[in-house]
């Protein structure tokens, strides 16, 4: 864990020093604020997204979806659709079954229907597809397909999924007689029970629901498949956050040779986890191109995106916390019922069916913890971890930060003081939690204190007291989260057998310009900038002279892709280390050029110079030319200046943060207004502070949305009630405040530049801050808990003492 016991990892520009802390905000380039390299094309409308791909002779694919949640398919008549002019093909599940393609593996070792053959299992499930000469005709033809369904009783309420009367959804699985998906537990049940049984502890119990939400990226999912029947090569432009993993899985599913598949993930219009799974539509597009011999585009519409692609959350939790009378937290226990929908489409490392929910002990040093989880199938869309959740840490942080506030309410303690009293202390890091997670580094109190200082916490409490006296409802909510991001290490973490490590290649051209090739794929995080900065800082070539190539399996090394905030922790480390390999070679070349031993060389500002004689130096650009030039190189050295690496992380990284939300609730309408939101994040070494703040701002907006607005609801028949953006409410500029951000810097000890992930911190950390603030505002009404989304009607019910779970 520590770098002192092993070969020391080099610091960014020094040699032999440990990772360092610095205020990068003051630096123009290298690590520091620099404008994004990708922006010039985006502001001109020249981004290239999947739907922008236009190929000669391209056909369009549209998918017929089930209108009902649970039904047996009696018959499908496609004759009228096939007869429509400009229709090229109509394919059903039976057609795919004949080719052995009707089912595909999910990322959780389950299977999912590409097109339904026997039954439909959720509203919106794929039943058939049409390929036509244009988008509109393809849609027209869907209207002409006749499907006869035998409607079955749907299983909508996860609480009733395991009742003996419930219809069995997954009768496709051998011997399946119930809707049980999996059981999972972590922690020490007996030790936890012993603490809860103590007569001297205060126990607070609270049922907490994290309803189903949807990432709803602005760009929906889609693909363009182009199968070349002469050389047998498939090129697939698709909305994927993990192009290499997808390619390998296509090779396994479709039986195509992997070297004959090229997956291109061009510009992505947001992902947030929604673009991690393989969706039936991608497979349909591939099949359609093979069948028709033409390029085929499939682009889902918003409704299809909301009703059929990866959702998130859907955890029904019971939280229990035990503490001493004076507020020392001793144990946390939780029982979770997880709704996984019709197919277990969760994209989490295989040994972690509940993702990283095991970090539910949060930022607190406690004595025991235990979690028991049961997951069930229901007649709802498959998925599970999408929406910037860090593999279920969103649910874990919500649980612990909500239950800690409930404890503060029970004890009559200030929630900030209760947290400060229980933090893991800096000297305890690396800290192994009671559920077995090794937190790499942390120093929580300064982060918390900074947030309180920025918020003016004491003044806010004074203002609140004055307002309460006047009958006004103002709330102050706190959340302190610890995340675990950057999966692998590969010994513990894999997706369907693919280890969660990432490759990186760096090539310096003769003139000293460079290209770096990444296995991860940006969905807006600014990889083309951040990774150029990492390389720039390590080898002294300006970011403008470094081309970042990603999102194309033919032109990048293998790796698992971008989700779970893993790009900087994993690929960022790979980029730093590959640059150091190049620099090591450059040093040998420089020693030849300067005719001194390598030990006599010092590295500074993109050049090697002779120790004690700064005048004698060679730049990295001169070294690059020599590496490719005509002269002799030091003995045994090959020409060229390039390197590659596959980085297997030693551990996850554990970013953390303190969030404070201030809300006003209208006593007459129960409308919640987020007045202020203060976010102090610690993600270790900050590479581009501008981009980091952007990541935080976006996540905070997600948090306000989930806490107050967003929910994918279903009626009793299993109809999705959140099938458009008129029904699934996403915050606009009017629902969110101007964000106030701050930071502390606690580097990761095992990451070569000390960086941790940041992409999901705010999405994970902000919902409890908002909900805690609303509950704080409702204290005069005696409300301790109400579930998200805290819409005016739900808040009103809570004020009347009628808070009910949303599901």
């Amino acid at each position, binding site marked *: 864990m520590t770098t002192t016991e092993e070969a020391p990892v080099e610091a960014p520009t020094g040699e032999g020093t440990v990772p360092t802390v610095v*205020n990068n905000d003051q630096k123009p380039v290298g690590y520091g604020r620099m404008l994004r390299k990708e922006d010039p094309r985006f502001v001109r409308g020249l*981004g290239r997204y999947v739907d922008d791909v236009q190929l000669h002779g391209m056909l369009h694919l549209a998918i017929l979806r089930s209108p009902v949640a649970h039904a047996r398919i009696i018959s499908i008549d496609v004759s009228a659709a096939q007869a429509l002019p400009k229709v090229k093909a109509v394919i059903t599940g039976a057609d795919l079954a004949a080719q052995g393609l009707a089912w595909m593996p999910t990322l959780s070792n389950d299977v999912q229907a590409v097109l339904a053959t026997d039954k439909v299992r959720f509203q919106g499930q794929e039943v058939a597809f049409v390929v036509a000469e244009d988008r509109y005709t393809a849609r027209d033809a869907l209207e002409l397909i006749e499907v006869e369904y035998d409607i079955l009783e749907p299983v909508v309420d996860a609480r009733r999924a395991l009742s003996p009367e419930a219809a069995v959804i997954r009768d496709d699985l051998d011997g399946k007689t119930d809707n049980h998906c999996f059981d999972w537990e972590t922690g020490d049940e007996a030790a936890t029970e012993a603490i809860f049984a103590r007569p001297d502890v205060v126990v607070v119990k609270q049922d907490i629901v994290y309803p189903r939400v949807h990432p709803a990226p602005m760009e929906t999912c889609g693909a363009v498949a182009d199968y070349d029947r002469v050389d047998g090569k498939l090129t697939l432009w698709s909305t994927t956050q993990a192009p290499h993993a997808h390619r390998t899985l296509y090779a396994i599913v479709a039986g195509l040779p992997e070297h004959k598949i090229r997956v291109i993930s061009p510009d992505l219009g*947001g992902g947030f986890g929604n673009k991690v799974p393989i969706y039936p539509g991608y497979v349909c597009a591939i099949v359609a191109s093979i069948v028709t011999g033409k390029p085929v585009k499939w682009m889902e519409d918003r409704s299809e995106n909301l009703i059929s692609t990866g959702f998130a959350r859907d955890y029904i939790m019971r939280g229990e916390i035990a503490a001493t009378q004076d507020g020392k937290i001793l144990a946390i226990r939780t029982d979770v019922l997880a709704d996984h929908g019709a197919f277990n489409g969760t994209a989490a490392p295989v040994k972690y069916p509940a993702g990283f929910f095991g970090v539910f002990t949060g930022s607190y040093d406690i004595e025991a913890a235990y979690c028991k989880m049961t997951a069930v199938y229901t007649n709802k869309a498959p998925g599970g971890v999408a929406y910037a959740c860090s593999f279920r840490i969103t649910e874990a942080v919500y649980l612990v930060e909500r239950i800690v506030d409930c404890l503060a309410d029970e004890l009559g303690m200030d929630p900030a003081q209760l947290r400060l009293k229980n933090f893991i202390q800096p000297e305890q890091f690396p800290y192994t939690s009671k559920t077995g997670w090794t937190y790499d580094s942390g120093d929580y109190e300064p982060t918390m204190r900074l947030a309180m200082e920025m918020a003016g916490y004491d003044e806010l409490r004074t203002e609140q007291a004055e307002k309460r006296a006047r009958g006004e409802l103002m709330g102050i909510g706190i959340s302190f989260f610890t995340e675990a991001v950057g999966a692998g290490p590969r010994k513990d973490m894999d997706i369907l057998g693919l280890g969660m490590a990432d490759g990186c290649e760096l090539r310096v051209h003769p003139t000293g310009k460079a290209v770096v090739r990444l296995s991860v794929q940006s969905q807006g995080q600014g990889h083309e900038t951040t990774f150029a900065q990492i390389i720039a800082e390590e080898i002294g070539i300006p970011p403008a002279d470094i081309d970042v190539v990603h999102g194309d399996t033919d032109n990048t090394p293998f790796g698992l892709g971008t989700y779970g905030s893993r790009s900087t922790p994993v690929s960022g480390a790979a980029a730093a280390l590959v640059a150091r390999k190049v620099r090591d070679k450059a040093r040998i070349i420089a020693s030849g050029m300067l005719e001194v031993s390598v030990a006599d060389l010092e590295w500074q500002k993109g050049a090697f110079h002779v120790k004690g004689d700064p005048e004698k130096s060679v730049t990295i650009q001169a070294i690059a030319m020599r590496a490719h030039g005509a002269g002799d190189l030091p003995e045994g050295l090959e020409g060229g200046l390039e390197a590659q690496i596959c980085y297997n992380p030693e551990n996850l990284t554990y970013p953390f943060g303190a969030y404070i939300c201030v809300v006003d609730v209208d006593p007459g309408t129960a409308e919640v207004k987020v007045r202020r939101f203060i976010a102090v994040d610690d993600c270790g070494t900050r590479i581009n*502070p501008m981009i980091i703040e*952007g990541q935080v701002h976006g996540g905070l907006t997600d948090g306000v949305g989930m806490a107050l607005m967003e929910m994918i609801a279903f009626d009793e028949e299993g109809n999705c009630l959140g099938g458009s953006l008129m029904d699934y409410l*996403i915050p606009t500029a009017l629902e969110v405040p101007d*964000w106030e*951000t701050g930071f502390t810097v*606690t580097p990761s000890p095992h990451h070569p530049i000390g960086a941790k992930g940041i992409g999901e911190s705010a999405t994970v950390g902000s919902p409890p801050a908002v909900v805690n603030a609303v509950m704080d505002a409702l204290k005069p009404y005696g409300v301790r808990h109400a579930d998200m989304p805290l819409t005016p009607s739900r808040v009103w019910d809570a004020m009347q003492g009628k808070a009910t779970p949303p599901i």
Partner: protein
Amino acid sequence: MQVSMTVNGEPVTEEIEPRLLLVHFLRDQLRLTGTHWGCDTSNCGTCVVWMDDEPVKSCTVLAAMADGRAVRTVEGLEQNNVLDPVQQGFMECHGLQCGFCTPGMMMTARALLNRNPDPSEPEIREAISGQICRCTGYSTIVRSIQWAAAKEAGESPAQEGGPVTELQETDQLKQSETVGDPV
């Protein structure tokens, strides 16, 4: 049917299906793919273009309705190889991440500044409230538009970024060393 209009100042005459949406006409027929398609229900605003200088959501406008009108898209913002101040502002203030909502946001921003060169923050938020951005959380979009307004007013626009408070004196920072100079 045949429609004629100007698109970014250029006259265009095309044969179309009467039901063709303006967004698909621009994207698929004219290959102006800077205008995006996001929701079908006029909620997300990634499809915003101008018809006769007024922003419209092109996913709920028929191409036929643009007949005889002047349409302007994101591709028409840059003039004579000079970026519009709004485009510059979005780059300067990190007003975009994935870039998908950006064309619509910029078209609305440009229209706002044309009728109100010095909008307040609430006015800016109101102007873009018919549009959704899933990445930025809107603060940087507001700053981008303020940047453009300041630029057009001849003021020197604010530096990128908003209020950022740094923790000055933790033990860790005291122990730290400084990374080398900027490259």
